[in-house]
Structure formats: structure tokens, C-alpha cells
């Protein structure tokens, strides 16, 4: 038997913008076991519900992550609206769906860039992020923010987006499709990319389900699991949503799921803009919360769980957020076992880890 060595990976590593640590147990250059370690920057944001009222907590929850901040704000609002017994206007649900899908386009383009950077394809990284800038410009024009938007509030939306602006958004996104296809084709067809991703980090359908994986990580393993199917949030049922699923279970399959989701999100935005009704975008909400409500959203990285519990005052007793990266870490540990040491950075990136979310 080869001699076993333990190589520490992280918490600082070129592919990691945020700290996570893995103890990699190696036999020669093969990983036989990986022990994850997080908690370097746990911020305790959930505990702020003791000193921030429920409306202020939306600002806090949005700041869990700078990539899927809109979704976090929406999830927090939806859980509070459920606890308050408030039904939001239909136009607000359409606007939330549109901005959430725009966030998915931005998040997946960001991830594609990071992945390209991870396997050393710098020009591809630059092109992914160049295109993403246009998406951020759309956010800025329609919400006023590029990272944190604060446009969602309990009861609906803080401001409306005009139909003209929505149509312009569709026009710009449709114009981006050709450019996105050009760069995503490189991910799918370039031999150097295929060498790094095809057949690497295979997670079977059974393993993905056993490890409770979520998002593109589980859909890349052939599992039709997407919280948008529940109809619990947004207008996905009205839009006729069907998730993107790939069967191979390797890094390439997870990449293809995300690429397909970029185009799907643009189509969903286009349909939503066609169907959006006129009307108000918010309703008044009670000033005290005295119920509880659990709801899930399909964030770009997968299922996120939000739970709000009131206590008859303006402060919540509990605001719980379980982010997708939390529950994809066990799947990552499984993928790493048997992998080459050189593939570890690619495998870490393949779950699209967000440590900011994990360390909420």
C-alpha cells in the first residue's frame, strides 16, 4: 500500500476567493479521503434578528451573499409574508421572478468565468465576466444596485419596473445570446476544457440523492429536482417551467446544466415580460409578526431554505437560512475521494461553492 500523506487545501488557495479548508488524505497523487472544515468567517447574521426588526432583517439576509442577494431577499420576504399571512400582488411576483432569473444569468456567468480561471483559460474567464457586466448594468438600471438591490420588501416590491424597461431588458438579453453561445461553446467543445472536466468528479444519481445534494450538482447527476417546480414562489408554473437535467454526473454535466440554465432563464424572463399584468407591486403588512413559515427557493447554486418565526412583536424569534453550499459539501467530499490531486481545485469549483452563504 502506498504511503498516506495529508495535504492541507485552503483556507487560502488561488481558486478560493473565500476560506474553506480540506484535509486531503493522499495515496501517491490520489485523494482517498477529504475532511472539510469551515467556520473561518462565520458572521452570525441570523442572530441579528434579535436587534433588527423583521423589515430590517431583509437587508441583513440580502447581505448573506453578493451574488444571489436578490434571491436571499426574496426568500426572507416570502417567509415573513407567510408568517404574516400576507399575499403579495401578482405583478410583484412576476417582477421577483424576472429579477431572480436575471440573477441566475449573472451568477452562472460569474461561475463559468471562475471555472475557466480555475483551469487556466484566462481569456475565457475575461469573456464570461465581460458579458456578465451587461447583466449587472441591467440590474443597476432597474434596481439601482449592482450587488445588493434592496428592492424586495415584505408585502411586495419597493418600486415598480416600467414595462418599457422590462422590454428593453429582454431586447438586451436576446442580443447577448449569440455572445453567450460563442463562449459557452468553448466550454462544451474545446479539447483542453473537455480534458479537465469530462469524466472528472463523477457523482452518480444514487450518490447525489443519498448525499442530499441540490441545484446543478444534483441535476447534473440526472435527478429532476428543482424547487421552481413546487410553485411555492414566483410564477414558474404559469411560465411552464421544466428543469435542465444532465445524466453524466461529471464536471462537464454540471457545467452544461448551468449553461442551459442561462438560456432558459433568458427565455423565462422573456415569457414573464410578455405575461406580466399591470397593477400594484406591494401591499401593507402588519407591524408585528406572530406566526411561522418555511419556504424554499431555487437559488443559482440550488435549493435554499428560509424559516421565519415571529413572537408577537416586530422582532423575529428566529430567522433561519440554509444555503445551497451547506448541503453540497458532503457531495464534494464524495467527489474528491478517488480524484487526482491536480483535479481538486476543479472539483471544489464544480459545486459553485459560496462560503459567504455558508458562513452567513
Amino acid at each position, binding site marked *: 500500500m502506498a504511503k498516506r500523506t495529508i495535504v492541507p487545501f485552503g483556507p487560502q488557495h488561488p481558486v478560493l476567493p473565500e476560506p474553506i479548508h480540506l484535509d486531503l488524505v493522499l495515496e501517491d497523487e490520489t485523494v482517498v479521503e477529504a475532511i472539510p*472544515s*469551515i*467556520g*473561518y468567517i*462565520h458572521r*452570525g447574521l441570523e*442572530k441579528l434578528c434579535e436587534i433588527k426588526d423583521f423589515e430590517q432583517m431583509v437587508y441583513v439576509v440580502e447581505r448573506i451573499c453578493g451574488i444571489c442577494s436578490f434571491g436571499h431577499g426574496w426568500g426572507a420576504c*416570502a417567509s415573513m*409574508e*407567510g408568517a404574516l*399571512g*400576507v*399575499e*403579495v400582488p*401578482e405583478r410583484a*411576483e412576476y417582477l421577483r421572478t424576472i429579477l431572480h432569473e436575471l440573477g441566475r444569468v449573472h451568477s452562472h456567468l460569474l461561475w463559468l468565468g471562475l471555472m475557466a480561471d480555475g483551469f487556466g483559460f484566462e481569456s475565457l474567464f475575461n469573456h464570461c465576466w465581460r458579458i456578465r457586466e451587461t447583466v449587472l448594468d441591467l440590474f443597476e438600471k432597474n434596481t439601482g444596485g449592482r450587488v445588493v438591490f434592496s428592492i424586495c420588501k415584505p408585502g411586495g416590491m419597493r418600486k415598480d419596473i416600467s414595462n418599457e424597461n422590462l422590454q428593453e431588458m429582454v431586447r438586451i438579453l436576446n442580443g447577448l445570446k449569440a455572445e453567450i453561445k460563442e463562449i459557452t461553446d468553448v466550454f462544451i467543445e474545446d479539447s483542453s476544457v473537455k480534458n479537465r472536466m469530462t469524466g472528472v468528479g463523477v457523482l452518480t444519481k444514487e450518490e447525489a*440523492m*443519498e*448525499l*442530499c445534494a441540490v441545484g446543478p450538482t444534483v441535476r447534473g447527476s440526472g435527478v429532476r*429536482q428543482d*424547487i421552481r*417546480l*413546487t*410553485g*411555492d*414562489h414566483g*410564477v414558474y408554473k404559469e411560465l411552464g417551467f421544466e428543469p435542465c437535467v444532465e445524466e453524466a454526473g461529471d464536471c462537464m454535466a454540471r457545467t452544461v446544466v448551468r449553461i442551459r440554465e442561462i438560456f432558459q432563464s433568458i427565455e423565462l424572463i422573456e415569457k414573464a415580460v410578455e405575461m406580466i399584468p399591470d397593477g400594484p407591486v406591494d401591499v401593507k403588512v402588519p407591524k408585528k409578526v406572530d406566526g*411561522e*413559515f*418555511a*419556504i*424554499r427557493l431555487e437559488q443559482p447554486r440550488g*435549493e435554499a*431554505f428560509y*424559516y421565519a*418565526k415571529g413572537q408577537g412583536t416586530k422582532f423575529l*424569534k*428566529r430567522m*433561519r437560512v*440554509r444555503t445551497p453550499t*451547506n*448541503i453540497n*459539501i*458532503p457531495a464534494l467530499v464524495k467527489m474528491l475521494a478517488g480524484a487526482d490531486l491536480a483535479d481538486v481545485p476543479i472539483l471544489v469549483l464544480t459545486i459553485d461553492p459560496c462560503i459567504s452563504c455558508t458562513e452567513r
Partner: protein
Amino acid sequence: MDKITAVQDFEYVELSNLISKVSDLKAEGYRLVQICGVVLDDETYEILYSFDKDHQLKTLRLDIKIDVDEVESITGIYWPAFIYENEIHDLFGVQFNHSQLDYQGTFFRIVEETPWKPKK
């Protein structure tokens, strides 16, 4: 819209029945969604175990006495539960027994020990 569609399926479970109930859910094909702690009062925590089957959420409520009750780990049934059990241990001070991956209080590097635990 959220209010109408998101079904709230909460069910109480006794500490002595936790493992058999969770085993039953696993056998029925449920996936573990999350576990979290809630401070009910100075003496009681509520642990919420959420599961999913066919996109329907089901949550078990377990009430435990702070500093008195210890909870059997469900990592033998759902291994990924170690993420949540270690988190609840470090933040709330709940003891989970027979965990398959116990970080023994080092999961989170936090300045204050068990910050969610009510101050006596």
C-alpha cells in the same frame, strides 16, 4: 401567492422516537433538507428537522430541555446531517450522541462559545 401554495407540514416528535421516525422517512424516500435550532424560552430549544419528498416539505419538531436532554445523531441515517448537528452543537450547545463526524466543537471558529444559548 406564497401563502396559498407553500404547504406547512409540521409534526411533533418525541426525543425517544426521533431515530425511528427519521428512519421511517428515509425508507419512504425523503431527503434531508436542513436541521436548525430555535430558542423557545430560557429552558427549551426546538430542533426542526426538514425533509423533502417529491418537492413537498415536511418538518419534524423536537423540543428539548437545555443542558438536560442529549439528542441521538441522525448521521447514521443521513450522513450529511453532520453539517447541521455540528453547527447546532457549536452555536446552541446541544449534545448529539453517536455522530459519524463529530468536530467536537471546532466546526465554527467563533469568539463566543455557544452564542445562541440563553444567558442565565
